[in-house]
């Protein structure tokens, strides 16, 4: 019975109602940790049942009865002492041996063919770089199934910790250090997973989430090709975009015709997203821009407005020379992401507009991160209303910028 308990537990907690369960075996790393867990819980359950049953039996058997005899005054028993010293030691050997084996398997270097991904923690978002593919993105990872991934983790500011419960983890991103974590998503159909920061990193520690999409090798290649190119703006006209498919994109960067707008790459289909990776964080009161204003947003006007705005000081859009910033997340393909604000909001016009209007109310931020931009908004740090002189934008201007940014697929 004790043996069945941990296995039963793991099986129950791996179900779909627990979308971030660690009891899923989607990677080799994960499977190893699960095996260790099962070993330990097996022994743990045996010890637990033995101790608690012994305790309860002792309490019941030796409860004081009226007129009961005076207890025998035993002071100790060397043989018993030896038994309960040696037995736990033996159990620990059964736990320690697979532990050590697993340590050396997963904490030595990653396989040579691993996909390299640089993970850089920022207060409070994740920067992901694929050096071999020339990709810089934020808060959303694409991983090809069946290929080892090696994460090289570091931090720009404070200590963060990188964790995708269903795939494996957890590893700290530490300044002045590069840590490594690797695993192979090997037994999973295309799927989306939640990731989180697990080391307390300040005000918005809870809001430093990210997504990982495990996709087929071909889809990954398409996505990577799309992300590697410069911003696709203005978006391809319907006749040129008509032929855009994974096949055409898999042969990217026609260097002879750089002026031609390129086709966006693969993006995890929105309709296939499992419910738990679709954020439900509500927009704070008073930040919603009416839908009709958003609908009137014009990408071309937004492009011009963006280039005159404060945004360009911190954000980069490759292919837009006016926007070289490196402090905030790279926006080159913002429209290809499903989430916003480090996994906190859905990436749609309503949320993006509210975010631009007053990011510091959407999510607790620091005094050096994205300021409020909406005209008349009170910035939580300066406590002053945003004016046009400070670079404030009205709702229509924001709607235009939103249209531009979401067009960047």
């Amino acid at each position, binding site marked *: 019975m004790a043996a069945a308990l941990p296995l039963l537990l793991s099986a129950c*907690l791996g179900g779909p*109602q627990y*979308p*971030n*369960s*660690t*009891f899923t075996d989607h990677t080799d790393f994960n499977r190893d*940790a699960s095996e*260790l*867990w099962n070993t*330990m*819980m097996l022994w743990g359950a045996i010890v*637990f049942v033995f101790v*608690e049953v012994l*305790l309860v039996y*002792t*309490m019941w058997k*030796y*409860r*004081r009865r009226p007129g009961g005899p*005076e*207890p*025998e005054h*035993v*002071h*100790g*028993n060397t043989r018993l002492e030896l038994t*309960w*010293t040696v037995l*736990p030691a033996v159990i620990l050997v059964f*736990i*320690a041996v697979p532990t050590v084996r*697993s*340590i050396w398997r997963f*904490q*030595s270097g990653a396989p040579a063919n691993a996909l390299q991904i640089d993970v850089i923690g920022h207060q409070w978002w994740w920067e992901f770089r694929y050096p071999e593919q020339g990709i810089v993105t934020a808060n959303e990872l694409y991983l090809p199934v069946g290929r080892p991934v090696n994460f090289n*983790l570091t931090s720009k*500011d*404070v*200590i963060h*910790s990188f964790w995708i*419960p269903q795939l*494996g983890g*957890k*590893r*700290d991103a*530490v300044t*002045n*250090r590069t*840590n490594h974590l690797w695993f192979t998503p090997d037994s999973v159909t295309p799927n989306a997973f939640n990731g*989180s920061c697990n*080391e*307390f990193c*300040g005000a*918005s520690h*809870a809001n430093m*989430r990210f997504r990982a999409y495990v996709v087929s090798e071909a889809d990954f290649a398409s996505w990577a090709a799309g992300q590697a190119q410069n911003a696709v703006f203005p978006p391809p006209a319907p006749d040129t975009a008509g032929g855009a498919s994974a096949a055409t994109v898999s042969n990217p960067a026609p260097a002879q015709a750089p002026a031609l707008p390129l086709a966006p790459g693969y993006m995890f289909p929105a309709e296939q997203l499992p*419910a738990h990776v679709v954020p439900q964080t509500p927009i704070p009161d008073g930040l919603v821009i009416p839908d009709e204003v958003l609908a009137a947003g014009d990408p071309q006007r937004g492009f011009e407005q963006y280039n005159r705005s404060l945004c360009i000081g911190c954000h980069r859009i490759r292919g837009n020379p006016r926007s070289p910033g490196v402090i905030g997340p790279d926006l080159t393909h913002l429209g290809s992401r499903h989430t916003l604000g480090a996994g906190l909001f859905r990436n749609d016009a309503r949320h993006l507009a509210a975010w631009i209007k007053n990011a510091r109310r959407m999510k*607790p931020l*620091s005094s050096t991160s994205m300021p409020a931009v909406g005209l008349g908004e009170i910035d939580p740090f300066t406590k002053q209303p945003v004016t046009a002189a400070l670079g404030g934008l009205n709702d229509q201007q924001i709607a235009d910028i939103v249209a531009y940014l979401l067009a960047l697929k």
Partner: protein
Amino acid sequence: MATVAASPTYTTAGARRTGIMDWLTTVDHKKIGTLYLHTALFFFVVGGVEAIIMRWQLMRPNSTAVSAEVFNQLFTMHGTTMVFLVIMPLSAAFFNFLIPLQIGARDVAFPRLNAFSYWVYLFGGLFITIPILFNAAPDGGWFAYTPLTGKAYSPGQNMNFWVLGIQILGISSLAAAFNFATTIINMRAPGMNLMRMPMFTWMSFVVQWLIILAFPVITIALFFMQFDRFFGTNFYVSAAGADPLLWQHLFWIFGHPEVYILILPAFGLVSEVLPTYSRKPLFGYPVVAYSGILIGFLGFGVWAHHMFSVGMGPIADTVFGVTTMLIAIPTGVKIFNWIFTMWGGAIRFTTAMKFAIALIAMFTIGGISGISHASPPSDLQQTDTYYIVAHFHYVLYGGAIMGIFAGIYHYFPKWYGRKMDERLGSIHFWLNFIAFNLTFFPMHYAGMLGMPRRIYTYDAGQGWETFNFLSSWGAFLMAPAFLIFIWNFFRSKTRGEVAGDNPWDAATLEWSIPSPPPEYNFAQIPMVTSRYPLWDLTHPERMKDIPHSMDGWDEAKLRTGEHVTATGVHEPDVAPMHIESERKSAKELGIPMPNPTIKPLWVAAGILVLFSSLPVMYAGKTLAAFAMMAVGAVMFVGFLYAWLTTPMEDAH
């Protein structure tokens, strides 16, 4: 001369002050223990309220009951409060009250230093707690990881209060540790060799060594942080090439022994409670003592198991993983010895006994979950999740707090001369036991289902709602349980059933004197011949297998003096083991007692003023800060000089 037990009060000598001044000037270890107990219970309420607000926020997803900033202050202060202002001082209350009584001493080695420790603790506690009323409490976690807590990322005053407050509390802990360790080494009654010390004293002895050796490390780590924040040094500044992990190593070299500083006193208390209510001696006394020493010793070699995710490499992970697993052995040994103490006994299920048994049952759960993160690959899926929160609450609440409750119910009659109400105690126990498990057991699930720690909010649909809802209701139920305890505690002081000197039929020296003990504790220091001196008198039949000897008696008779009572009788200071039921004043007996003094309080206040000047300096008010430093330094030096030049007791 015997005072009527129905109106128990401390006897007072001529020079005693009365009312509030009595408490401000006391150097009596029992009264200082009382001060520690009450102050710690006050901070327990503070820490509990902090926890309940957090659970209110986390009861539902995307809740906005409190802001992120407030939540971060709450969890930082909850941890800091419970570790430094509740569990350690509750243990200190028992060190103070019990150690001299258990070893047959009239006070601790340095009574005035003892008062000083208390006042420093009180001032440090207020210093670190009061800012929360102004939304300026520390917010970097009780572990205060750099670089987050450096000036660059925590520019406010918040972390200043933490770094300085912990420094102040460290002074208190260290001063107390030197004092108690000296007391145990040097002031045991004749015949009480180390292997005859009561188990609580044994565990306390180990704890003092842990404090002596672990606190200097955090002191230095804090000095670095303090210098970084106030004087612009680079110890934790990444841009200057600093290694952010230096703090983590120093913090956990202190922090892991700290865990045993928190738990071992509770182990000691249940080692007193279990034999008493089983009517049997402690099973395997030497093994229980040695395993305590071993836990303390190993405790210094496992710190990096708090850091498996920082990327130390496979060698360090292997070493720290294996040493951590080794600690399970002496801990398991203790559990089995406790169960076999009960085995074959005649168990009385008093409230104290229930709490002691609960410690065994709950600590076992904490121990087993502990093994699962002693294994680094497994720990990587667990560290910094709610699974860890569940684990250490099973250890610290299910272990330390349950043990301390057992101790309070068990020793209340000795402390106040009356028993706590058993019916209310039973309600307290069961409500607390159920609420505790309801709060913390679901956290195991939340953690293994991917919920990180220290988050002030989480999204809906992550599979965490049910567990958080249960945990929150558990926390809400803990509050009435604690209120019942507080009601029982204060009511029983004046209206509880009169207890008598040895209501539980216990075996150790503290039960051989009146309840509450007279200020001098022992009119004549008992000379003991065995591990259970009182049972030698009351239950000689229980003692036949226990070795007896009169080790140290001759020497003691030679070296101890005598006191001359008011009626002119010469009484030797020592006498063979005996029961003292007469209550006289120290003056009548001619026993010289240390004079009450307020100087330790003022020296502690000087330290408070000195430390308070630094936040003032941080705020840019340099002149005011220097003025405060000058005042603080004058207070400190002046009152210390006055203290050291005043004899402790009147000439005799």
